[in-house]
């Protein structure tokens, strides 16, 4: 069974700060990992994904994420946040074979203060 854990329900930072949103997963097989952003009351937008290769992947709007097999993690980072980055961020995992299910974490609400 695949599980995704986002330990921080809320993160608050100031504009210009760096931020890291944490994601840990549990799965025994080969997986894809991804991050999505959801602004209030709207659908989700894809940020970035990882399957293999360079463990640091670049996404849109200056976001990057780093995969760690030893820690079973896929944390999302941004060096300098803007107020418009305030949103809910979801980590997701899917298996490379078998189920067609995309499993989401519980989400982290990022609030960027001016």
């Amino acid at each position, binding site marked *: 069974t695949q599980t995704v854990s986002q330990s921080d329900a809320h993160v608050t930072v100031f504009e210009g700060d760096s931020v890291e949103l944490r994601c840990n997963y549990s799965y025994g097989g080969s997986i*894809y990992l991804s991050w999505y952003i959801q602004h209030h009351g709207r659908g989700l937008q894809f940020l970035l994904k990882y399957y293999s290769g360079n463990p640091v992947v670049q996404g849109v709007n200056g976001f990057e994420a780093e995969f760690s097999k030893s820690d079973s993690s896929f944390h999302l980072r941004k060096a300098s946040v803007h107020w418009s980055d305030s949103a809910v961020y979801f980590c997701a995992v899917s298996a490379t074979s078998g189920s067609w299910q995309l499993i989401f974490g519980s989400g982290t609400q990022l609030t960027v203060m001016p």
Partner: protein
Amino acid sequence: AQTIHQWPVAEIKAVGSPLSLGCTIKGKSSPNLYWYWQATGGTLQQLFYSITVGQVESVVQLNLSASRPKDDQFILSTEKLLLSHSGFYLCAWSLDRSNTEVFFGKGTRLTVV
């Protein structure tokens, strides 16, 4: 460019009444289609997926059903709504099996009273 359109934007329905939510994808042939449900302030739960016309697979049982009558259309329905059906319903599509880059519609807010 591909577009995904969901309707209606919002619904307020009575317990026990029927429901039909729709989703249309334009600009992409034979997409994989998905329905997700999100409780207020909660995570997303995948409900159904469809790889081809006429074929729909259920992921969880929530007294809902889904159909894919056309390549670009995905319908979510039930004959009898429950209070627990309230939430945000998202239709989505992806190109391939990897399922990592999924494109979401703007969603339908359903309130069951």
